[in-house]
């Protein structure tokens, strides 16, 4: 599963993406974020206020409850400042 990081999250992690293989019990984005944070202190700290992040699956913003598979590309999106 591909994970993309953007903006200050990407800077704080010092990388733009990860390739991960979560265990079978990770079924939703909620599960994924919990699992990622448990395994990465920098990410855990950067996401201390998780509600400000939006998540996308295969280039569509989706709810945190969305189910995911190993073939998906997930992005963790800090609050957007376009326009």
């Amino acid at each position, binding site marked *: 599963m591909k994970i993309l990081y953007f903006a200050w999250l990407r800077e704080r992690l010092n990388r733009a993406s990860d390739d991960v293989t979560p265990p079978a019990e990770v079924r939703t984005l909620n599960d994924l974020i919990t699992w990622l944070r448990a395994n990465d202190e920098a990410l855990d700290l950067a996401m201390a206020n998780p509600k400000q992040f939006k998540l996308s699956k295969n280039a569509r*913003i989706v709810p945190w409850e969305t189910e995911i598979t190993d073939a998906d590309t997930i992005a963790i999106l800090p609050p957007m400042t376009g326009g």
Partner: protein
Amino acid sequence: MIIISNAPFDPGALLTEFQNNHPEAGAAVTFTGMVRSTPERPITALILECYPDLAQNEIAAIRTAAIARFNLIDAAILHRYGRLVPGEPIMQVMTLAPHRQAAFDGAQYLMDYLKTDAPFWKQEETETGTEWVEAKTADDTARDRWR
């Protein structure tokens, strides 16, 4: 029309192209956002990061919703990314409708949603370094008035 690009654009040329060939349209509203530098907060550039695939999909969804909600004849969005200097246009939204209120409302709706739901992130470059622009809660409030 949706364009996500790192190339400069000409706001006027874009407007002229957009408006043509719609005799049933009575009103067009264009919003142009530009890089701002003030004496109190002088910046040398604005650097925009983007997730292009997601931007394309989300902006398409926002555009479709705006057209349906305000019965627009057409709507177009262009958004740049990359490094832009003060005065340069960042983005433009255009709406075409039979009458003026729908054109104004459609353009404001598009802007309010783009501010909070389009995957762009701004960084201000000054003499002393770069700094990420913080998201404004005012933008969430502006978007939520359409709910």
